[in-house]
């Protein structure tokens, strides 16, 4: 019941806002969506505590059940999604981009949230796929309608890239799921995880794993299929970027954990060297691009590529620690990137562009609060201990250093070394941003050039900053929540 409501409330509110309530004035739409996300947040907490699920037939012909529920792996993501959903709706008090009615905008946000929640709670592989696709259209609308108004061509291009890339990936994933379902005869993720691919011969496991991994890699995104991310992030409105980074990318890694890792572990093991190498290349690649990228939003997008590289590396290691690291880094990246995107979106709103090559007064002088949050986010992004980014990346490097027994040890150790180098590069680009924006190139402030944050924006930023700090200082609870489920999946295989 809790889970049904959790999914139904944002979905229903979102649907109504994009259809019947499209012409609703901003205030009413905001109120409605705020109520919806508030309820969703409460329900997500209830779901996390009660761990109830629903399960009824959906497509009896295909053996697909309408089965939703949460477990240790899903709980953090569900909470994250609900929280980020609440924050992006709250952000509508700060900025509602042009391009359509505000109600449609808010409705799309709610629909993305609903789709993500459905993805994270789906307990059936086909259902997972359907939920996975749910977010596509609303997100596409957010990007291509409400995105950056400067360049229509770029906006359309970014939207198309996002949707086509993702559709490609998810269809490959669907093929993988169908193959899996054909080979095993069930699409219930719990059964599949319990069977762990034991019924499949090795080459079939490899085939299924390859399809699933390739498909999901697009969403994560893993190098070299990451090129949709920077334009999407750059163009999307702030709320869209936040959702994209904090929620949508997580669907990819979550899918990796749920599908290939849990259901065809041996096939995944055979692929994992490739995945590890790609993850590491992504870490270094993203970081290097960040060293010279001029657009701050793009820069953060590339840093996402680098951070997701850590997640992928940890997953590839195949140990329980690796899985834990991946799940932690996943959440941490969600919070940190959300923080950075809210911030940078705010800067873009204030400045018009976020081109790093434009000399600006120091943020710490003109708007100390904004500057403080920026520097906090950057510190978290470079993996500073005490902030969210640290644990996941440390454990990821550890996991790569000590991979599961059926992984090529030398290769993974090499990957760990490169990942550590990537962490140093992260410091370099984070400091680059800090030097350009935080301490500024025009140190003498001309008064009032950058409005400091206040009101709802400040609340949103503070909440996210608190999340960053809490995750960094107290990683224990989150790791404990995932521990049991991870042990059940048996990352050690």
């Amino acid at each position, binding site marked *: 019941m809790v889970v049904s409501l959790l999914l139904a409330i944002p979905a229903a509110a979102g649907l109504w806002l994009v259809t019947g309530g499209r012409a609703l004035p901003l205030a009413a739409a905001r109120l409605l969506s705020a109520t919806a996300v508030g309820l969703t947040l409460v329900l997500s907490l209830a779901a996390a505590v009660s761990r109830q699920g629903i399960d009824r037939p959906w497509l009896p012909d295909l053996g697909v059940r309408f089965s939703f529920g949460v477990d240790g792996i899903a709980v953090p993501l569900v909470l994250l999604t609900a929280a980020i959903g609440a924050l992006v709706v709250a952000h509508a008090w700060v900025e509602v981009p042009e391009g359509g009615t505000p109600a449609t905008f808010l409705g799309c946000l709610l629909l993305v949230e609903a789709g993500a929640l459905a993805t994270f709670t789906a307990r059936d592989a086909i259902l997972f796929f359907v939920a996975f696709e749910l977010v596509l259209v609303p997100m596409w609308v957010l990007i291509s309608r409400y995105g950056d108004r400067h360049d229509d061509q770029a906006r359309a291009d970014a939207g198309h*890239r996002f949707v086509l*890339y993702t559709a490609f990936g998810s269809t490959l994933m669907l093929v993988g799921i169908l193959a899996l379902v054909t080979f095993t005869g069930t699409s219930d993720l719990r059964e599949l995880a319990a069977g762990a691919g034991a019924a499949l011969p090795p080459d079939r496991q490899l085939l299924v794993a390859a399809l699933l991994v390739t498909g999901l890699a697009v969403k994560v995104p893993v*190098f*070299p299929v*990451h*090129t*949709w991310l920077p334009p999407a992030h750059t163009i999307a409105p702030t709320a869209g970027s936040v959702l994209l980074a904090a929620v949508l990318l997580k669907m990819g890694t979550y899918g990796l954990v749920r599908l290939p890792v849990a259901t065809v572990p041996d096939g995944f093991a055979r692929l994992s060297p490739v995945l590890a190498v790609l993850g590491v290349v992504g870490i270094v*690649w993203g970081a*290097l*691009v960040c*060293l*010279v*990228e001029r657009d701050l939003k793009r820069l953060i997008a590339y840093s996402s590529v680098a951070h997701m590289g850590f997640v992928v590396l940890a997953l590839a290691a195949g*140990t*329980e*620690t*690796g*899985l*834990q*690291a991946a799940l932690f880094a996943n959440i941490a990246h969600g919070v940190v990137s959300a923080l950075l995107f809210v911030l940078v979106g705010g800067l873009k709103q204030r400045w018009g562009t976020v081109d790093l090559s434009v000399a600006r007064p*120091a943020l*710490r*002088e003109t708007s100390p609060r904004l500057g403080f949050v920026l520097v906090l986010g950057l*510190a978290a992004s470079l*993996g*500073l*201990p*005490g902030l969210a980014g*640290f644990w996941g990346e*440390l*454990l990821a*490097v*550890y996991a790569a*250093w*000590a991979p599961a027994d059926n992984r090529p040890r030398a290769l993974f150790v090499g990957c*760990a*070394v490169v990942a*550590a*180098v990537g*962490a*140093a*590069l992260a*410091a*370099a680009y984070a*400091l680059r941003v800090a*030097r350009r924006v935080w*301490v*500024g190139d025009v*140190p*003498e402030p001309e008064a009032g050039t950058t409005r400091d944050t206040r009101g709802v924006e400040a609340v949103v930023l503070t909440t996210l900053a608190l999340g960053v700090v809490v995750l960094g200082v*107290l*990683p*224990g609870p989150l*790791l*404990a929540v995932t*521990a049991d489920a*991870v*042990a059940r999946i048996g*990352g*050690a295989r």
Partner: protein
Amino acid sequence: MNPWPVVLLPALASLAGLLLGRDRRLSRAVAVAAAALTLLLTLVAWAVQGEEPVRGAGPSIRTGELSVPLDVVSNPSLAAVAFIVALVALAVQVYTVWYLVDDDRYPVFAATVSLFTSSMLLVVHSGDLVLTVIGWEVMGWCSFLLIGHWSRRHSARRAAHKAFLVTRLADIGFLLGVIGLAAGARTTDLGEVVESWGRPGADDTLRALFLTLIVIGVLGKSAQLPFQDWLADAMEGPTPASALIHAATMVAAGTVVLAALFPLLAESPGARWVLGISVSLTMVLAAALAFAQSDLKRLLAWSTVSQVGVMLSALAAAPIEAGPDAGLFHLWSHAVFKALLFLALGWAAVIAGGTAAYALRGSAAAAPLLRVSLLFGLLSLAGVPLVVGGLSKEHVVAVAWEGAVHGGPGLVVLVALLTTAALTGAYCTRAYLLLTAHVRPQRSSPRLPPAVQGVLSGLVLLSVLGGLVLLTDAFAVGEFSLTWVVITTLAVLVGVLVALRGGFDRDPAEVLVPRFIPLADRGLGADAAYRRLVAEPVLALARLVSFLDTEVVDAYVRGTAVATRVAGRAGARAHRGERPGSAVGLVLAALVLLGLAGVLAWS
């Protein structure tokens, strides 16, 4: 006593300081009071500390196979180090109140200092490799903030940037070493790691490799060769920050970490050689550079590099049974006199309006306390017998001699130590001569608040009497032979005499090595070398990658789009005529082709 309160108190003070940021007086009170309370706590902890180590249980976290208990520990030497850290922190906080009285960002500075203190105390008390890493990295970040405090100055921004990046680069090694050790032991608990890797069956090569990696990290944080150059630039930070960084925290942290890992280090000749060679070269080179600096604050910076080399040399050379405490003791004494020197010099610089040698000439005459402070600080730095610096240096020499007897890098270290002693004597003499020169009538000195005067006096006292700490058995150092005392004293004397060759009124550096001064000011061009060898290649690579990303990786994507469009255009063109006949032709052609395909696929 459980060390957690000692660690957490300054952290909480930092948080409170940030939250109260708007109210200057409140944040001042919080910062100073917390520092004082921390000092009190460490004192109590030290007092109640028995011989046995004390553990404080941490918030153990579950991460699959790896056990991460996050405990903290304390033992007599660590308690003593913690005390001196807290002492320096308090001195710095009190001093800062005066020094940054006009600074609009004082609250942030004070909070950062508190955080810095907390993380150093965490490293000191860490009983877990992860905690060490946490403290280690947070210190690096705090140093970035402190060095770049005056971010309106371009040089400060650059120095902060460089300091963080250089140390972070070295941290790659540190991180990998820690992870390697943890992976071998399946835990990050320091005691268990040491035990696990210290077992007879442990892999010697791997152990040496991991310790070498950690040593690389330590070399970076401690500004030893080849990472030496950032520390002198870091003088762009406010003087209290320099005092903190140099005296008891960041650069000395490596000594603490290696001391904790000493049982393993002692068994890893490879790592010891790396460490020994690096620190030997560094201490001599840095001392030489210090001598020729035209900026006295940078002179102190190079002297720190040199002295940290001395500390680390004790760890590199000491035989296993001697233990690491000689190094820790030197840390202790260095903290005292370096804090004294920096705070005094900061005062002098306020009087003189700059830190350049020519500006500071004769500034010590402004106040007797300043003169006394500088005198005792420099005496201690020079390693004159019986003051605290001399005492600790003798212990280092003693263990180096022991080590030299046992083999290992001891002999190299010993030679370097003696050379350094002479050079140190020389530059201390130079500094003193410059500061006390009789050149011009002094301007009236700004009034120093009594609290700061008290701090300086206390530090002077400690620099004279600090050696008495040995009576508390905090540091398990052995005897030192009179022979070596004589030899090192002679070496110092040689240095002093050489420096005095030009008489009392002239700058010895300009007399002895005039042409070396500009070179020394540039740190032998290390900065350019960093840029050319590391920064520029990395940036070139970054540009290449950025190019590849848009023009190659993405080109495939765009290529697909273009190919689709071209195919679409071709398809549309092929159907543009819309001739009825062609439709039929297609049908029949397809019939043949498909028929053949079907029939052939069958047979």
